[in-house]
């Protein structure tokens, strides 16, 4: 048995002492798009700012939730982290090494550094291949296990560990023969077989039936805990994000508007956008019904924002200043930040 196999079998003991840090500094993703002009026969070239200057830090073992509405840039951020798209500005550093450098040296090493679980489990695998082939090719690509047999036993062990048994029943099936929950578990398993230091999960349960969501969330939790992997959990579902994550980031139109320890942000939101988001979120908890805050319209496409606060046009408490100046990031309590002029009352006048 190869060294790697041993390591996998003694799950959870290998990387504990190794600490990895993911550092994102001022990352941008802008692209030009033709936008409808005055009528459909005219168009204007505009810069869409999908991700507009984002910075955060994530350490091994942490689980960070990202919430926001569609178009807020959370999925683009996931693609930037996994190099499905390349940022137009800023740095993504893994333990101080930039992503470009890593990709240049060893593209596959980068892939082993950060893996991803996708929203749609039904479409995560090539429909022409069975599960055995899908997993085997992944291991082969990354030279995990020298022979076919060795790889087969790695797969076998890993699947048994997460309760996908009897293993043979799964291996010889094609993706369309499995349920969403089973597929998503295989997707997580495949990502974790590469022993990534970071895992991005983009809406991993939103396409699943309610009754199987919990097991996926629990599996994600266990898997990252065992390997001390850091998890970025992207979701529009605030309740689930609260359940799984240690800290939380709220995004609006490509920027982070509020961030901090999960319960601190969700129970004591400082930014009006976060407040609106939470108050409009339907909850099973009927005894604590809150009245939804009313705001105008829907999130626009991130074009021509600012110079003021991006949320100002829809904000229920915006003043002149909000339209002129982008609010600075302010610390409310330890580790809890928000960018709003109203946090510090002195700024008001």
């Amino acid at each position, binding site marked *: 048995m190869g060294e790697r196999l041993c390591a996998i079998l003694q799950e959870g003991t290998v990387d504990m002492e190794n600490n990895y840090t993911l550092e994102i500094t001022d990352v941008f993703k802008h692209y030009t798009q033709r936008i409808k002009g005055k009528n459909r026969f005219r168009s204007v070239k505009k810069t869409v700012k999908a991700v507009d200057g984002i910075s955060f830090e994530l350490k091994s073992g942490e689980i960070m939730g990202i919430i926001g509405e569609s178009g807020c840039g959370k999925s683009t951020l996931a693609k930037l982290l996994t190099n*499905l798209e390349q940022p137009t500005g800023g740095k993504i550093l893994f333990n101080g090494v930039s992503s470009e450098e890593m990709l240049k040296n060893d593209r596959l090493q980068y892939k082993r550094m950060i893996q991803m679980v996708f929203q749609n489990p039904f*479409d995560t695998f090539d429909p*022409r291949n069975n599960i055995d082939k899908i997993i085997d090719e992944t291991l082969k*690509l990354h030279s995990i296990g020298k022979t076919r047999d060795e790889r087969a036993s790695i797969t076998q062990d890993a699947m048994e560990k997460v309760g996908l048994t009897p293993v043979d029943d799964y291996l010889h099936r094609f993706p369309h023969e499995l349920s969403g929950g089973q597929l998503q578990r295989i997707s997580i398993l495949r990502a974790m077989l590469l022993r990534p230091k970071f895992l991005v999960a983009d809406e991993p349960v939103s396409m699943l039936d309610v009754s199987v969501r919990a097991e996926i969330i629990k599996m994600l939790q266990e898997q990252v805990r065992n390997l001390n992997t850091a998890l970025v959990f992207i979701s529009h579902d605030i309740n689930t994000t609260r359940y799984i994550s240690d800290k939380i980031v709220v995004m609006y139109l490509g920027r982070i508007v509020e961030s901090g320890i999960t319960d601190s942000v969700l129970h004591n939101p400082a930014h009006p956008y976060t407040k609106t988001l939470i108050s409009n979120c339907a909850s099973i908890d009927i005894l604590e019904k809150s009245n939804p805050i009313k705001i105008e319209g829907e999130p626009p496409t991130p074009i021509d924002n600012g110079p003021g606060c991006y949320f100002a046009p829809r904000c229920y408490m915006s003043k002149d200043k909000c339209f002129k100046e982008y609010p600075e990031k302010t610390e409310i309590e330890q580790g809890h930040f928000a960018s709003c002029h109203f946090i510090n009352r002195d700024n008001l006048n």
Partner: protein
Amino acid sequence: MIEIERIAKMNKSGNFKMKIKKIISSINNVKQLKAGIILLALIILLAIFAPLIATHDPFELNDDMVSPPSNNYILGTDGLGRDIFSGILYGARTSILIGVVAASISGIMGTLIGGISGFYGGKIDAVLSEVINVFLMMPTFFLILIIVALFGSSMFNVMVVIGITTWTGNARLMRAEALSLKQRTFVKSLETIGESKFKILLKHIIPNGIFPIIANTTMNVSDAILTESALSFLGLGDPNVMSWGQIVYNGKSYLTNGWWISTFSGIAIVLTVLAFYLIGDGMNNILSPKLNSNN
């Protein structure tokens, strides 16, 4: 050519098997597919066993010129006394060969160009799709006509020229497939796993998007047979082989006193072309049952 083998190999595995199974089980449900396959099988058998079935040497000049169908000449003879029935049997070989080879050339070119264009996108796509647009706007038949007129009308020339002037339809189909497959989660997941772009194209995009191209290529066989027969009818056929278009062409001058010459050879073209159309359309039917089915 390596690519072709690879594609062929890949198609043997997994989902393709399922699709084949699906096709086989659907053959009985999709009437036109069933009819097409039976018809084509018959024509191919006749072509293979032509030397055994033929009553005369198709090039032999008999003494009975413009002789009507009789016991000796089942479908009559032409102006030079050649037996029509035997001519049609041997002509089947020419038509099917030209049709299949030309359509395959067009299918392979279209798949690769369309696949690269759609999957890689960006500047490559901009250039390639412009090439496709230009080709689509050109009167292909006249181009074929002129090239064949200039370079000679050997069977090889005809096949190649038809092949390289008609790939655009396939390229457009494959490009569209590649564009939509590229958006699929499994392609993105292969990228995050670390598979290289070229391998994704060859191992995942093309095999998953090839089916409409196979259906379309089958229909292209029909078009190629029609084009070849039109060329022959215009006197631009390969004089060294027996071809249906040529027989129709030969019979044109005897329309009044030898109606059988053009009539039977024409029917042979109709039936063969029909067989490929039915099969191709039947395959499309299986792909999008909602659109085409009669229920």
